[in-house]
């Protein structure tokens, strides 16, 4: 699957997930955004070598994945490419930081090793937290939350417009690509000599569609800002969600829960 198909699939998957009738989807977007940001700040504030403490923050993700009924498999697919870049930076740490911090059965554990693992955990946690946020929140919902946070209307409208145009264009491009591949079996992509005609066709077709979209928006009374449909969020649950997670995450950050639990053994 190429990037184009993958992008379309990702958008549809996220939209479908966010609109499902799950507990997590009924929480107000603002509560979810605030909790996610709080979580990210706390995770990134951990010291490089505090791996156990950092691992404690995984509880947030585990609980949301299980209670929110979100697919772990799909989420982990997102981490593949990210981990490649992080691995390169982490590998540099292993090379440059060779100070032995402690030994496990004779195996010397260096600062570079810990900092590399720490980078992996932080990167993974951050991506999964953002994924969980979007798995239960539509782009409309996110924009609604941004408006409540007093992000200017022009910026929010812009995000919604880009999102709408993008889906349209990706679908159009995918149809044309499929038509080309059916006429040119066995080819991996569009040959250079066909670029002109391929691009020209796509351009004409997209022009028609883009004009239709723009006209329909105008006809439906678009005056520079999209109105947000008022959805019945579970307000009380949302407040409890935000407050309880705010406190729980702080406790996880402040107290070495895992060390305490390990000490009980």
């Amino acid at each position, binding site marked *: 699957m190429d990037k*184009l198909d993958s992008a379309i699939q990702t958008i549809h998957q996220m939209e479908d997930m966010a609109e499902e009738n799950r507990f997590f989807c009924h929480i107000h977007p603002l509560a979810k955004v605030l909790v996610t940001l709080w979580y990210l700040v706390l995770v990134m504030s951990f010291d490089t070598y505090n791996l156990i403490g950092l691992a404690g923050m995984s509880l947030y993700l585990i609980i949301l994945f299980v209670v929110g009924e979100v697919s772990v498999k799909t989420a982990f697919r997102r981490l593949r490419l990210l981990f490649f870049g992080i691995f390169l930076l982490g590998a540099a740490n292993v090379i440059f930081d060779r100070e032995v911090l402690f030994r496990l059965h004779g195996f010397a554990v260096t600062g570079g090793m810990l900092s590399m693992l720490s980078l992996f955990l932080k990167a993974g946690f951050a991506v999964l937290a953002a994924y969980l946020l979007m798995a239960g929140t539509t782009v409309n919902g996110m924009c609604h939350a941004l408006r409540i946070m007093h992000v200017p209307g022009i910026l929010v409208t812009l995000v919604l417009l880009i999102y709408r145009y993008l889906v349209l264009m990706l679908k159009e491009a995918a149809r044309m690509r499929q038509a080309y591949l059916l006429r040119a079996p066995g080819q991996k992509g569009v040959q250079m000599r066909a670029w002109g005609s391929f691009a020209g066709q796509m351009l004409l077709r997209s022009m028609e569609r883009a004009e239709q979209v723009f006209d329909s928006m105008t006809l439906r009374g678009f005056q520079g800002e999209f109105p947000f449909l008022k959805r019945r969020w579970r307000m009380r649950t949302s407040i409890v969600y935000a407050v309880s997670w705010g406190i729980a995450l702080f406790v996880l950050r402040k107290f070495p829960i895992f060390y305490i639990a390990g000490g009980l053994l």
Partner: protein
Amino acid sequence: MHMADALVNPAVAGTMYVCSAALAGYSIKKVKMEDEPKKIAAMGVMGAFVFAAQMINFTIPGTGSSGHLCGSMLLTGILGPYAGFLTMTGVLLIQCLLFADGGLLALGCNIWNMAAYGCFAGGLLIWKQVMKKGVTRKKIISTSIAACIVSLQLGAFSVTLQTLFSGITELPFGVFAAAMQPIHLAIGLVEGMITAAVLVFVYEARPEMLWTGNIMECAPKERMSFRKVLAVLAAVAAVTAGGLSLFASQYPDGLEWSVERVAGSTELEAEGSIYKTAGQVQDKTALLPDYALPDDDSAAGTAVSGLAGCVIVVAVCTAVCYAFRFFRRKEQHG
């Protein structure tokens, strides 16, 4: 050049959020002063175009590296620096949320590195100064390339600085920068050529659509309506997304390539002072004190104890969550 959350600490991330928000606030004020209702549609289409273009990594011959389009200069050439900056902000937000391209916490950094330099350094300081005396094809091509190179160089340097101040990597600053800058020079050149091609197309179709900082001197040619040009730009976005994506490079991008190249060398030596400073900043900005691991046996024991605790707590929490889900489902069905 998208930075992940793991590459920045909260202090750096917060600072860059504030800087980017200040620029966004100023840009909104400027766009509102222009009072062009149609512009928002143009911004939406152009944003989708840049989004599509950024899905592609361009292979740079001879280096084994590739980079993707940073469309801030392109947006500035059409919409002006302020609207261009806001559009890029929107694009980066969507990329971050839907495609995990760049972190949510690092969004301020990414806006600064990929939008601010292109729109303000490339757009205001280079593009505007050259174009205010009249627009020609040659000027568009040379200015686009120059502005893209400058903005990418500044962006790459910022990535290096932000990573350094976050204290994330052990890479020496000089080595990291020396690896980042040349590769982004090549990427800037590629980006400049693509930007120039699109801007020349717009110049041919509707020259008055180009932003020059003042009223265009050349006579407008009634070849296409405003709406049609918007549609063409939208179509170009679709072409870029659909057609060229088929040829998207599988190679790592410039940042990854730079790090790989540096990490592969074993002759490099770490410079200590700047890391100490970064460490002190990290210590002061950390919300709470952390637990150090000294080089002795008790430290290993503590680590094992912590690890065991970790397994227990995670197992208990997961079991409780599944139990919660089981009883909730039962309640719903019953």
